[in-house]
Each structure stands twice: as C-alpha cells, then as structure tokens.
C-alpha cells in the first residue's frame, strides 16, 4: 500500500501539509502518534529515523519527526509531532519499536525533551559525567567551554554468578580502529551479553552545521565518516539541491553514481580482507589491501583525492571526469575484476575459513527487522532494503542491478553480500561509464530561501544515510540531522555476539564494520 492508500483506508488518517519531491510531511497530534505509527508499521512501513528540532524562537515549541520508509512507495513520509516548550514531553515509541530506542534517547540528551514511557531513558549520547547541558538547543552556544571531565561513570548491568565475569575493552583498542567501550559478560569463553558505550568521538557535528554557510558545510558532511566521505557529501548536497529546487545534469548524476560505486568497492574489498585476517587468513588480506589500493589510485586519478574528498558540491561535482582518466580507470577495473575473482577463489577454497565464518555471529531476520537494521547487515538477515532501488537518486534509475539478500544472517552472509555487491558495482560502473551523457558537470545552485526542509538519502556502502536539513537565513542551516547507518546497526552487534566465544568477537564486529564517528558525530 502506498502512503496515500494507507491514509484513505484509515479514513484520512493524517493531514498532509507539504509534499515536495520525494517527501511527504504530515502532522501527528501526539495523542494519535502511537496508533498512527502502529497502522503504518502494520502496512509494512519501517521507521528510518527519529529526530527533533528546536523551534522555540520561531514557534515556541520543539518538533519531533519520525521518518517512515514504505516498500511500496518511492517517497519518505515525515510525521511531525509538536512538543510544547513548557511540558517538553513527547510519547516514546521505543517499547513498541526497539529501532527508535537510541534515537529517542538522543533527543532527550540533545534537547532536554522527555520521551514519556521510554523503557530505558538513561543517557546515550552525552556520557554520564557530562553536566546537565543540551547542546542542540538554540540557547546553547557551540563554543561553550565545559570543565574537564573525569572518567566515564556509566553503571553497567551487573554480572553475577560463579565463574561469570566481565571483560571491559576500550575505548582505545588494540588495532587501528575507532574508540568505543565494550563490556562483555562472559561465562568462560561464551559471551552472555555485551553492553556498548559509544559517543567517545562526538564532535558536535550537527551543531557545527548550524554555523557554516552551505558551500563550506559540504566539507563537514565529508568528515562525518571519512570512509563514506562521498556518500555523506552526496546525501547532503541532495538535500541542499532539493531545498533550492535545483536539478542537476544527467552527466553529474552519472559521475556521482560512478564515484559512489567506487567508494562501495574499495570499502567492501577492504572488509572482505579484514574478515579473512580475523580468522587467521592473512595472505588473503594482503591481496585484498592491494586491490583496495588499486581503487584508491583510480579515485585519485578521477578526483584528485584518494578518498573522493572535495569532489561533490551542490549542483553536481566540482570537476568533470577526464577521458584519459576514465580510460585508465577502465583498464585498472578490468584487472581488478580478474584479481577479485582470484581473491574470492582463494577464500572460498579454504575450508577452515568457511568453518569460522558460517553460523558465527547470527542475526536472525526477525531481530533485524525489529531493530531496524539497514544496509549490508540488514540484507544478510533478510531485510530487503536498498535506497538505490527504493528511492532512486543520481543515475540509479537508469541502471539495473541486483540487490543481494540472504536470510542466514551470519558472518559468511555479511561477507557474501559484499562480494555480490562488488560484482554488481563493477557492472554498474561499466554500464554508466559507457553511456556518459554530454553536458555540464555542475549547475549553479541559487541561494536557498529560509525555512525550507529537505531530506537527502543515499545508500552508502554500509547502508542508508539520511541528511535532513532546515534552511535558515543567509544560505545557512537552521538544523541538520545526520543519520548514519551505524546508528541503526549497533544494537545488531549486541544481538549477534550473544552465545559466541570471545575470540570470535573481532570477526563478528568486523563483519558489521560500523562507523564510530558516523554514530557519534
């Protein structure tokens, strides 16, 4: 059922107050929020994001938004629940929809609103040792200097019983990875449960967006998660273009598609190598990191940056792809494809590798659906979502591609989704590159009028990236909400490690490979 059908069937269930491009905005009086959400979920919709904005200065209230994704509708539905500035309470949906658990608590931390009825209303984003501040409120200056903190004082769920003990790990880890704290409760080798503490790398990015003019803010978007620089940059630029009613050229769409797929490829091949390393197959990683280097050199040749930074801009891309660079890229990708097949043959012919990956770190499809898991991890557990297909952007509506979906939800399938996607990406790049349209690579985007709301959605290599903006005066932003897929997916790691042995934790964690920076912002 499309959103319109849901609305009609429910007897004009909600009022639409704005419809632009791929977004429908509706108002949800807070008394009805629960029942209408239940109806939408009953029709197969999924809550993609929850966030708030401070409108106390303009309208004397806050707004909480729920973003719904519908498999039968190419649009996103944004349901707005007004929150009075004096009571500051909004109804929590976390008990019915576990997927919104963290995001509702984030709203409590950032804005000081109260999610009424939340089953676990403790802080998630602000650590327990932070003073009582709400950084995304308009009356909180970004340059506020807070006193130095003592260590984190979070109280973990106790671990009791004979032979049962805790293993605290992090925030500084043994490898070259990002910081976060894991608290394992174990009975011998098997993990009873895992408690996470994130937001160690919180940098105030959403607040920082409110300081910068739009053209400079693109660089901030690229710094949300460095390995997804181009995806985040594109999501942000799409939101800006939508708010400015700007249409980019077919050529710019194609260039973005090629670069998005290159980003997916270099990350996927690195992950495949890293998964092999974590089960002791180092030589496969040596080949994989060599292959990743091939793609990074293509990136540099096409855009001037190995990580595709500084390339995307509102209105298209900053530089056209040169024919000679494209020619070189074509040759390298041909070699890459052959080498990638060899790499996969090496890995697939190793029985001991398969033995370690199969039935390890299982995330069941029901759990994945309830927790709102997206991207690679979702598709390995039966969640058939892909923004490229469901909400086409760039040039994805002009290419056909397969979205791999498995139901087993183990490490092996999360690797297999990546393998399949690399192959699809190579085919897609070849197809788009063969059909390059002439025309400008960039169009001028006019200054945006204030109070425009827009959503940018991109399927990054990890999964669904959303950027929601409200524009302010002077080509600046009033609010920018960033939803990296990692934010949805951390609870999946907690589920997947249960019952597995501690030595398998690195490979399980790697098979999700979530961005700490993207989560913490």
């Amino acid at each position, binding site marked *: 059922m499309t959103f319109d059908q849901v609305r009609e069937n429910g007897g004009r269930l909600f009022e639409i107050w704005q419809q632009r491009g791929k977004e429908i905005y509706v108002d949800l009086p807070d008394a009805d929020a629960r029942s209408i959400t239940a109806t939408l979920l009953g029709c197969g919709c999924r809550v993609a994001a929850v966030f708030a904005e401070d409108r106390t200065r303009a309208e004397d209230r806050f707004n909480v938004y729920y973003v719904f994704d519908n498999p039968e509708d190419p649009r996103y539905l944004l349901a707005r629940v007004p929150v009075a500035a004096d009571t500051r309470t909004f109804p929590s949906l976390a008990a019915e929809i576990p997927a919104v658990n963290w995001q509702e608590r984030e709203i409590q931390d950032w804005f000081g609103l109260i999610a009424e009825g939340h089953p676990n209303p403790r802080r998630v984003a602000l650590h327990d040792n932070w003073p009582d501040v709400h950084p995304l409120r308009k009356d909180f200056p970004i340059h506020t200097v807070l006193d130095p903190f003592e260590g984190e004082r979070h109280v973990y769920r106790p671990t009791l019983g004979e032979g049962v003990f805790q293993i605290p790990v992090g925030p500084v880890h*043994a490898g070259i990875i990002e910081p976060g704290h894991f608290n394992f409760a174990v009975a011998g080798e098997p993990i009873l449960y895992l408690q996470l503490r994130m937001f160690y790398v919180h940098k*105030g990015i959403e607040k*920082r967006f409110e300081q910068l003019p739009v053209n400079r803010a693109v*660089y901030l978007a690229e710094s949300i998660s460095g390995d997804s620089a181009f995806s985040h940059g594109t999501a942000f630029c799409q939101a800006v273009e939508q708010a400015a009613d700007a249409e980019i050229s077919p050529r710019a769409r194609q260039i973005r598609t090629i670069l998005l797929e290159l980003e997916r490829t270099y990350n996927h091949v690195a992950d495949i190598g890293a998964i092999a390393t974590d089960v002791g197959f180092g030589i496969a990683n040596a080949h994989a990191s060599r292959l990743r280097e091939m793609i990074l050199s293509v990136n540099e*040749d096409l855009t*001037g940056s190995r990580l595709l930074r500084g390339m995307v801009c509102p209105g298209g891309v900053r530089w056209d792809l040169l024919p000679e660079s494209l020619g070189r890229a074509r040759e390298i990708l041909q070699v890459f494809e052959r080498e990638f097949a060899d790499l996969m043959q090496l890995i697939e012919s190793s029985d001991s590798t398969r033995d370690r990956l199969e039935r390890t770190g299982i995330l069941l499809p029901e759990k994945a659906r309830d927790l709102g898991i997206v991207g690679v991890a979702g598709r390995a557990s039966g969640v058939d979502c892909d923004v490229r297909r469901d909400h086409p952007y760039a040039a994805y509506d002009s290419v056909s591609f397969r979205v791999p979906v498995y139901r087993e939800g183990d490490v092996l399938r999360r690797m297999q989704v990546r393998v399949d996607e690399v192959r699809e990406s190579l085919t897609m790049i070849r197809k788009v590159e063969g059909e390059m349209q002439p025309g400008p690579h960039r169009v001028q985007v006019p200054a945006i009028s204030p109070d425009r709301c827009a959503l940018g959605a991109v399927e990054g290599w990890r999964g669904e990236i959303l950027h929601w903006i409200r524009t302010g005066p002077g080509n600046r932003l009033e609010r920018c909400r960033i939803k990296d897929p990692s934010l949805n997916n951390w609870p999946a790691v907690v589920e997947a490690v249960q019952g597995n042995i501690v030595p398998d934790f690195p490979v399980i964690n790697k098979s999700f490979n979530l961005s700490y920076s993207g989560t913490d912002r």
Partner: protein
Amino acid sequence: MFKILRKTVQTGLVTIGYPNTPAKLSPRYRGAPRFDFANLTDPRAAADACPTDAISIVEVDDRGHVTMDYGRCVFCGQCAEADSSIHMTQEFELAARHRNDLVVNAEYGLSADGEHYELKELEQNLAQELQGRIHRLLGRSLAIREVDAGSCNGCEVEITALNSPVYDLERLGIHFVASPRHADMLLVTGPVTRNMELALLKTWQATPEPKVVVAVGACGISGGIFGRNYATLGGVDKVIPVDVYIPGCPPRPEALLYGILLAVGRMEQKGLPQ
C-alpha cells in the same frame, strides 16, 4: 596451499620505492596550495572560500595581515578556484616539527578606500633543532601505537594502508603494536574530543620514555573543520606534547611515512612551499 603460493608468485612485487624513490602521484592529485604573493592582491576571496579558515585575515587600521595555516588546510582547492594567483601543487612532504613551521604570514597595506597594496610574505625561520638522543634510540626500529582521539576515520583508512604490501611499513623497521606499553611512538588522529581526552592522556602516560608523539591530519593539528567547541579541544597538543605534525585531510600514506621518518630523524624537514 599451492594455490596460495602460485598466486603470490604470480603477483610479484607490489611495494613502492618511497622514500628512496619519488612517490607516484596522479596528475590530478591535490597537494598543498601555493601562494604567489607577488600577484595576490586581495586575499579576501580565498579566505571566504576556505571551509576550515586555514586562510585568515586580520585588518587593523592601515595594515592587513594574512595567515595561511597548513595545519588547518584540507587541500580542497577552493582557494585556488577563488583566486588565480593561488594554485594547487603536488607537494605532500609537509610534516613539521613545530606548529609555527606550518604557518605562512604575509602583510599588506590598506588604503582608506579599502584598496589593498604591497602584499608580501614575512620572513620565516624554520625550527631545525634535532633531538639527537631520541633519534639514535628509535631511528632503526620503531613501534607505533595508533590512537584515534576523535577522527572521522579518514586518517585511519590511510594509516591502515601503511600495513598493506603496497606501502609495507615493516620494510623500514616500523610496525604497529597493540599496547602503548610496547610503543615508542603515538600516532594520534582527531581533534581530541572531550570524551577521549582522558583516554589519550592515559595512553600517553602508559607509553614508556623515550617517546615521540605525532599529530596526524588537519584535525590532529588544529581541530580541522571541527575546530574547538563544546565537544572538542582543537588538536592533540592541547592535551599532550607533540613532536611532529603531519598536515593533510587525510595525509596520503607517503605523507604519513615522511612524517614518521622525520620524527625519528631519518628525514630532513623540507619546509613549506615558498
């Protein structure tokens, strides 16, 4: 087993020659922007375009002062697009021992009607002191502990690449270790978030003397695009003493290699493009 060996033999040698041979760069690679001060008259357009305020202007009465801070630069090329007297070079060996070595200053006169005249670069003395003792002790074999103190993980992508057969750090006697207690060097990324301040300090305290600290990337040097705010401190040297700064966003693997070798006295500081 034979398949693995055959693939290894087929692949052959893939390691680059740097630092013994020059790095292979694509013609499009963007390194440090270079300023042609003789032809640059009005730096305001470039300063406006810079996303990280690497180019900043202070005007007092009839004198203006421009600062170009390579410790904030993200090599985006916006300044070069805004002003034709600035162009992007391919220089990446920018690591320096002192924060001030990354800053270029210029002055200009300001007439009453707002016209600019006589923009000229100010003399700069590169700090060239050597810390001989540490270099002798750590120069030949070096153990590095990487610490992410709030990075966007872009720097980690490039640091991980150093372990790949293409850059093969171990051929230079350098390797990454799992604990600060085994480390000679801390390689620190990120603007240092408030939530990582204590962890960074403890990691530094756990590293035995003699130790070297290298700050990586625009964020590690100055806080980069995040700067200093309620959640970040604005650079590694706000918390622990830093021996070498490696500019970049992120620095390419060769730039990291150059900075690491500079820190242990196996390279000479080249200085900024003049």
